[in-house]
């Protein structure tokens, strides 16, 4: 496990930003999903040792974030959500300083600054002052800042914030490359589901300082069972009520097609048996692809229902 927390709570005055979170994050790329105010950034800053947890424990790469903050930061990179740069310095100077602050020798930091800037696509602009960069370039610059000291784990807080579609694709491609080909574990915090879906293997859904769901994307998609699109010939209302009487959710996708949600323990056999029982013919049957958005909305609805 690269990250583990046990009953981790953070309180700012009366406001409880994290409510006793217990997590275990394996290596690879993990997405932290949640609406604004869910506690994603607070969790990342707590794991970086920037915020002291009120109660509970947290370990990053086997290091306690309370007692080994500096060692954690030496091995971890961070892409902040907000715009952050050194005024009046070009990208090479900025990265050299950041590399040196992480413990690298000046010459190593300088040569690695060039290398990392080429990697993130800023090679040609590396001698320009960072404040003259476009938003997309600044995001890449922040990624370079997170990678300069070659961390084992990077936290990326809203890495595609404010980027245009093509820049966003490039950034996601970079994140995929970092996690899959460079051997660096990645935790991506975002409220943009397609971003997380495209570059993460596992997802943690958060809301109001709590973890609502955790698992691989495939697991979460299958967790709530499977939804099928069904078209029948015969009495549609009898067929639909057969399922609703048994507690299955049935909705109309269009005037001709039902959307029937079955629990994980069930299968298409149930649909066929229902067709026989109701005397209808099945003319169309297709499993509906659940997106991460469905999982996310389900999780949030579940949390709201529990309130």
């Amino acid at each position, binding site marked *: 496990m690269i990250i583990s927390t046990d009953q981790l709570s953070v309180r*700012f005055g009366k406001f409880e930003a994290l409510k006793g979170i217990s997590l275990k994050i394996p290596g690879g790329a993990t997405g932290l999903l949640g609406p604004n105010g869910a506690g994603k*950034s*607070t969790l990342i*800053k707590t794991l*970086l040792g*920037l*915020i002291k947890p009120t109660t509970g424990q947290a370990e990053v790469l086997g290091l306690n974030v309370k007692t080994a*903050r*500096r*060692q954690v*930061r*030496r091995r*971890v*990179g*961070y892409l*902040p959500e*907000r*715009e*952050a*740069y*050194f*005024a*009046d*310095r070009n990208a090479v*100077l*900025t990265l*050299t*300083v*950041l590399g*040196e*602050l*992480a*413990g*690298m*020798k000046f010459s*190593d930091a300088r040569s*690695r600054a060039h*290398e*990392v800037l*080429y*990697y*993130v*696509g800023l*090679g040609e602009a590396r001698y320009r002052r960072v*404040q003259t960069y476009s938003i997309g370039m600044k995001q890449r610059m922040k990624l370079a*800042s997170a990678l300069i*000291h*070659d961390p084992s784990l990077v936290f990326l807080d809203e890495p595609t914030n404010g980027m245009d579609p093509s820049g966003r694709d*490039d950034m996601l*491609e*970079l994140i995929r*490359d970092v996690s899959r080909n*460079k*051997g660096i574990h990645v935790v991506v915090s975002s409220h943009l589901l397609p971003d997380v879906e495209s570059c993460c293997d596992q997802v943690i859904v958060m809301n109001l300082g709590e973890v609502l769901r955790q698992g691989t994307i495939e697991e979460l998609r299958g967790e709530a069972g499977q939804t099928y699109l069904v078209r029948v010939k015969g009495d549609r209302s009898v067929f639909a009520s057969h399922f609703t009487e048994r507690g299955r959710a049935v909705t109309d996708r269009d005037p001709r097609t039902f959307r029937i949600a079955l629990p994980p323990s069930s299968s298409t056999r149930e649909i066929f048996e229902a067709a026989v029982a109701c005397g209808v013919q099945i003319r169309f049957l297709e499993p509906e692809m659940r997106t991460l958005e469905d999982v996310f909305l389900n999780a949030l609805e579940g949390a709201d229902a529990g309130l």
Partner: protein
Amino acid sequence: MPVYDQGYRRFEGPMGSGFANWWVITKSEIILRFSRKLLLFLLIIPSFLPMLGMMIAVYVMLQIATSDQLPMGASIIAKQFLDQVSTEFYFLFFKIHASTFLLLWGAFVGSDLISNDRKTNAMELYFTRPIRPVDYLLGKFGTLVFFLLFTTMLPALLLYLFAISVAPEAAEGTESYFEATKHVPGAIVFYSFVQAIVVSTFMLALSSLGRNWILVGAIWGGVYLFSQVGYRIVQELSGSGAAVAISLRDSLLLVGRRIFQLETEVEHWEAAAWMLGILTVSSLLILCRRIRVVETVK
């Protein structure tokens, strides 16, 4: 074509302990300021002009005093001038510096040290590295201290060395120039540090309070200049020498006179010393509150 370079590789070089992280910050700030041509031509080079002027004056007067071809009057005036090249002469250098350059250094170098970092959220970059707030503070502090020492202690010591090297040999039975002024180098070093520490701490505290360096610089200028005016007014009204504590510049100069073992015009140098001490401690307290890792939390 992918945006990334496939040649990227993992870093396998040595990683230090980050023992001198403050120096990394100081070094980068110093390099940045030396790269600003305007600052170089308008502040760094002019800061050495008083020293050059005083060196030239000493040299020329020495030539006149020892010349046989010039009228006797000129020689007498030159000798009188050279008699003044004593402790007061070196202190005059600091007085010139305090009247102009100290104000400008504070405004143009000190004001943006922290305010710019707050404006650009650079603290998030600093504090997500393995550094402590004290490293950050020392790094910023070291920058202004460096420039203040570079433009006070260095030229003052050079001026002293120059005066020693050109001073005529003492007549028998009289003490040499070196013996008469042997306390001066220590006073130069000590006073330069006192001035640099007080001004840098205060300037950093001011810088940490704002995000706009121009505003911070203007506040510094206002405090520096108007506190002198306040001092003169209160002194006139009350007749008390202790009113010197109102003015930062005059307090520094009064403490400086004491360090240089010069007669003090006002006998309340203790009040000035207390004021500088309180100002420094208050500035440190402000910095401790403002420079916190929690700053990164929105």
